């Protein structure tokens, strides 16, 4: 990066200019400005780390000029790169500005050299990778793979008891009813009465009869019906014995009850 600017034009010798022209014709073959720069850098025939970025910038700009002359449409990124390289070139040629807080021109140039070296390294790596033995080309998998099967086997079971219960179910009608089941869904009058006797002491105001039904009896329709009937019957009992008053405003309306105040 210490080259004299005046030598630049001369340094682009005939061969280079010729190759640059060939490049112009083949612009389509380039994968962007970095690829083009990498190709141009080969004319310097030095290690990428020792490359003259200034010279490379010069080459690139000359190439772009040539392309413009030939009225070849350049993609925007080629032009962006050209503008940047023109800026970098001017920065490299000027003495460093001590007040500039940004990166020095040398740092920018070094990074470009790094990018080129990294791209080249990846290309080499890609070539090495593709040169490896490959499956289906150099080595092969099993040609007759066997299926790994998941066999699902369902076995059905039934006990003698199941069988007898099944038969009993068929051979009897409503006579056969699981005894326990019924018990579960029956709320007896006695139970309701017992419960309500305790609760009505607190029923100074009119309260809905339904609110006396325990929560666990409210959800299932069968149980709710049984509990409602039991509570209704219980409330009638309590009214009869003079413990509560009952009222209902309309047919099927809610039934309310209140403790009967003595006297």
């Amino acid at each position, binding site marked *: 990066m210490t080259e004299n600017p005046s030598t630049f034009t001369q340094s682009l010798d005939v061969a280079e200019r010729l190759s640059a022209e060939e490049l112009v014709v083949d612009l389509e073959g380039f994968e962007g400005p970095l690829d083009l720069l990498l190709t141009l850098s080969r004319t310097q025939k030095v290690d990428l780390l020792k490359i003259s970025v200034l010279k490379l910038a010069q080459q690139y700009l000359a190439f772009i000029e040539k392309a413009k002359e030939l009225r070849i449409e350049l993609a925007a990124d080629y032009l962006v790169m050209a503008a940047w390289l023109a800026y970098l070139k001017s920065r490299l040629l000027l003495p460093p500005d001590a007040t500039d807080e940004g990166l020095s021109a040398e740092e920018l140039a070094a990074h470009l050299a790094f990018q080129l070296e990294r791209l080249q390294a990846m290309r080499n790596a890609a070539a090495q990778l593709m040169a490896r033995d490959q499956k289906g080309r150099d080595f092969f998998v099993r040609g007759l793979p066997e299926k790994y099967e998941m066999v699902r086997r369902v076995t059905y079971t039934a006990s*003698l008891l199941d069988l007898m219960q099944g038969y009993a179910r068929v051979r009897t009608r409503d006579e056969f009813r699981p005894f326990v089941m019924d018990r579960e869904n029956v709320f007896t009058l006695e139970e309701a009465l017992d419960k309500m006797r305790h609760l009505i002491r607190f029923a100074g105001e009119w309260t809905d009869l339904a609110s006396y039904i325990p929560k666990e009896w409210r959800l299932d329709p069968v149980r709710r019906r049984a509990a409602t009937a039991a509570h209704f019957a219980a409330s009638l009992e309590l009214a009869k014995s003079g413990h509560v008053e009952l009222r209902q405003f309309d047919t099927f309306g809610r039934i309310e009850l209140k403790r009967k105040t003595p006297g």
Partner: protein
Amino acid sequence: MTPTQENNQEGAKETLFEAPPINEQERMVEAILFATAEPMTVKALNDRMPFGCDAAEALVYLRKRYEGRGVNVVKVGDAWAIRTSADLSFLMQKEMVETRKLSRAAIETLAIVAYHQPVTRAEIEEIRGVSVSRGTIDQLIELEWIRFGRRRMSPGRPVTFVVTQEFLDHFGLESARDLPGLKELRAAGLLESQPALGPLSETAEEDIEAGDEGQSEMFEE
């Protein structure tokens, strides 16, 4: 130059066109049999291998090498292949056994066959009060719990169903006659109140005509 030397030189010349050593040939046969999608005849192997190879001989060695291994070199028709050793075939499949309870319809159908055998499908439907699906019968046959009995000597000659020995074994019965009757079911607390009929009446027809209590299937879900 002695004649011996001459012979040696001739030998050396020949090796240029000689087949690879037999252990190399064995490797080749091994690789080919591994990678091909179909069994290979000796001829097909020889066609693939370098000139002068003897696949048949290489196969002898390869076959011996795989004796007792997890895979074996086996002859398939007049061709050769590498196959999983028969005793390890269990590794190639996983059996998942799922135990399910027999459906209510199937249990009831089975019970009717057991108590009324031989019984026709129409009779089963009469007793259950609902139609019996083809799948239920098939399932019980597949389980080998019922089988076809003799055809009924009545119009249409319908097939009958009877229970099998397998059924008796599964339920631990000596014979279908050992099935507990309704009285015993009641005694066992399985029945609450009076049934209309005994369970073991000799002919199903009678049951149906007289009893008719299986008609409404109240417990059907």
